[in-house]
């Protein structure tokens, strides 16, 4: 078997089939990166999986999952002003959390260099929105490199690291979902490990590092000057691509994944346009663009999400009064979704109908029933929702937070009627409670989120006396993003740690009403929720059960593991369908006559369903029904 760690640490140059999220780790190794931090979020968690493949003592850099993206950014910054090349990576919306720190970075003299790797998510495959983080780059004077495929992820990271070391400034490497998760053969360079010089080099004389009063203005001036130096680099770099098709009429300026889609769409097109593919999308290589604009009569700016580059290019053409027609975005759909080959086909056809065949305007209708994501078989959140639904009135208001339990908003539970972002549930719930005495307000939250961004909202509810109930869905892990440990897990990325128990934190805050129960005890949980919601003060119910997906996966590694499953006693079942219609475990299958059977591929035999059957027709795993069937 090819071992990932051998590949990541190989001395000689080689090539291998890898995903973008793996290629970047080899680049970190070759670049001499010393400190890396993150908070998990799709599409980036596989970067940490690649890092994890290298045993801790062989890892040429320090890595941690911090408690949130802002903390991770601050940690990487601290290391970098001590002289270490550092990197922080997280998902798109993570930058909102990190923003207060991030927007200051470009003001600082970051002597070690610092790369900020963003996993943007056009198409909102696994995010609350598809925000275009290039806006943050512009507002903070931070350069952005945008790779299109794993090969470029590798090469652009090396460029970003070098640039940030040379100019002592932060540099963004902006990945997108299908760049992170694309796989292809990549040629890597050699690596000769050097003994790192870990002398703490922080020196206030390298500053100022205090952006106050007059300093702040001076520092901004310096940031803008550095950005002009980057522009120079953006003009010269070999990473830009110019595809000369000898077309003096038409050209396309593009970047990232849109470029790949464009190349596919143009296969077989009449009169191929010239193409300028940018490596740096901020700051723009102005001279290069002017030359491209001047040598064509029509330019299409092909850009995923917002018109960030387009507007700057139009401004250049306007200032220089260039006689060129620039086509950008025209209709709202142009701002929306991933620029897949199909999308680029439509956009290109709308611009130049004579260049490509008409694009199919609508996709073939999906003939199969939708398949929304579900909580897993045995999930403690399901038992919790099933119980809590019985404890609340239909008019009560339930506020969700980010995590697996968010899926409770789907039928049959429909619990969690509002969602914003990580940690937002308690304070939103507090607002919903103002002037409201008739409808109870209940907030939900997972344990990773609790430590990530929830504490200010919780403390506010105590501080300002908001009588809501918070239900903490503690499963001991950061489940939704792939089971990363959190402060309550008893382990961090590198070693065993003391648990930071959620309950004691809450007690320390002075909360008087804290109840806790395993979610499989559904009747007890329902009782506790009724009790908690009738108290006229902030109350918490800790609804606890280990993540069963994680648990089952660990069990399966055991060679003696045998999958167990419950069975239905068909003689007892009265086809009331509580198991399917209300409890809703995906294991229960309905045939055309309405009989219920068990999908044995799915059932893990946890038995959390047994208590939900009004006729006691569900037989525990390993027991037999009266007919003798197992």
């Amino acid at each position, binding site marked *: 078997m090819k071992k990932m760690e051998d590949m990541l640490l190989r001395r000689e140059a080689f090539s291998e089939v890898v995903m973008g999220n793996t290629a970047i780790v080899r680049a970190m190794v070759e670049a001499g990166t010393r400190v890396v931090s993150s908070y998990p979020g799709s599409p980036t968690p596989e970067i940490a999986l690649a890092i994890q493949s290298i045993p801790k003592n062989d890892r040429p850099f320090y890595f941690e999952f911090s408690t949130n993206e802002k903390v991770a950014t601050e940690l990487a910054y601290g290391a970098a002003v001590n002289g270490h090349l550092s990197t922080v990576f997280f998902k798109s919306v993570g930058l909102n959390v990190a923003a207060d720190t991030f927007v200051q970075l470009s003001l600082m003299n970051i002597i070690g260099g610092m790369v900020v790797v963003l996993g943007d998510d056009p198409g909102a495959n696994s995010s609350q929105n598809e925000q275009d983080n290039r806006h943050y780059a512009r507002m903070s004077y931070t350069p952005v490199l945008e790779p299109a495929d794993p090969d470029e992820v590798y090469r652009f990271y090396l460029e970003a690291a070098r640039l940030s070391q040379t100019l002592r400034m932060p540099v963004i490497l902006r990945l997108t*979902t299908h760049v992170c998760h*694309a796989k*292809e053969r990549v040629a890597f360079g050699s690596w000769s490990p050097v003994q790192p010089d870990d002398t703490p080099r922080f020196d206030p004389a390298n500053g100022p590092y205090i952006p106050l009063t007059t300093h702040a203005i001076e520092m901004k001036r310096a940031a803008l000057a550095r950005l002009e130096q980057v522009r120079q680099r953006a003009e010269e770099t070999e990473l830009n691509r110019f595809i000369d098709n000898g077309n003096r009429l038409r050209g396309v300026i593009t970047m990232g994944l849109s470029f790949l889609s464009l190349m*596919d769409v143009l296969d077989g097109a009449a009169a191929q346009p010239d193409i300028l593919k940018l490596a740096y999308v901020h700051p723009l290589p102005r001279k290069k663009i002017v030359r491209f604009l001047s040598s064509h009569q029509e330019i299409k700016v092909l850009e995923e999400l917002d018109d960030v580059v387009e507007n700057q290019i139009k401004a250049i053409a306007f200032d220089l009064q260039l006689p060129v027609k620039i086509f950008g975005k025209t209709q709202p759909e142009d701002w929306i979704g991933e620029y897949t080959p199909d999308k680029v086909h439509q956009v290109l056809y709308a611009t130049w109908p004579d260049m490509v065949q008409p694009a199919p305007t609508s996709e073939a209708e999906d003939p*199969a029933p939708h398949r*929304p994501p579900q909580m897993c078989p045995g999930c403690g959140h399901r038992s919790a929702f099933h119980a809590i639904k019985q404890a609340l009135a239909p008019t009560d208001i339930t506020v969700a937070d980010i995590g697996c339990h968010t899926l409770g908003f789907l039928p*049959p539970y429909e619990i969690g009627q509002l969602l914003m972002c990580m940690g937002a549930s308690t304070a939103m719930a507090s607002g919903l409670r103002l002037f409201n005495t008739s409808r109870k307000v209940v907030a939900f939250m997972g344990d990773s989120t609790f430590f990530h961004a929830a504490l200010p909202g919780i403390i506010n509810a105590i501080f300002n006396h908001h009588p809501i109930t918070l239900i903490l869905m503690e499963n001991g892990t950061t489940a939704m993003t792939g089971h990363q440990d959190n402060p309550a897990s008893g382990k961090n990325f590198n070693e065993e740690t003391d648990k930071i128990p959620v309950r004691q934190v809450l007690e320390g805050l002075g909360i008087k009403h804290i109840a806790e129960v395993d979610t499989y005890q559904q009747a007890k949980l329902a009782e506790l929720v009724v009790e908690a919601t009738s108290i006229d003060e902030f109350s918490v119910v800790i609804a606890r059960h280990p993540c069963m997906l994680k648990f089952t996966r660990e069990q399966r590694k055991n060679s003696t593991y045998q999958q167990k499953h419950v069975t239905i006693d068909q003689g007892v079942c009265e086809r009331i369908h509580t198991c399917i219609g209300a409890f809703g475990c995906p294991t229960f299958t309905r045939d055309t006559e309405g009989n219920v059977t068990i*999908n044995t*591929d799915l059932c893990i035999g946890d038995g959390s369903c047994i208590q939900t059957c009004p006729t006691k027709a569900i037989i525990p795993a390993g027991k037999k029904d009266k007919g003798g069937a197992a």
Partner: protein
Amino acid sequence: MKAFSIYLTGVGGQGIGLISEIILRAADHAGHPVKSVDTHGLAQRGGIVVSQIRIGDKIFSPIIPAGQADLVISLERHEAFRAAGTALKDKGCLIYYNTVWQPLSVRLNQTAEIEESYIQDLCRARGIQVISVFHADLPDIRMQNMAMLSEIHRHRMIPDIDLEHYQTAMADLMSGTMLAENRALFDKRLTA
């Protein structure tokens, strides 16, 4: 090689990732330029997983245009029907594992379960070659993907990839008993 696009689909937990990576690596071992991309979204939670593979000299994006896949591989019946309807080209090939993981609306009796005949009818109407695979005797459901891979090779559904390329790809990704068990199953089905 002329471009060949493969669309793999199934439900989170069925092992799409492994079968996709084996095909990707087998194509690479066979000397073809190849790219792939996985879309998992929230798939780990019983949603749809899709993996796309494109083989050929003039391939740029790993994403297949709608309705342009040459081959659809599905590990579940509903997903086979969905992908045949949206991703597969006319006269293409569909191979699916004939198991059912009912989507929510089927369990709630709001929509009908997709039956085998629906797939047959759709494929007949569009000139699609269809192969349905099911083995009642698999030791572990996580081997359904390997049974599928074996059928894919037995029917030579992907051009210009030989047995040794699949075998080398499997050895890249697995070792010990896992490799031995999967190889045994793969080889057995080839001759069955």
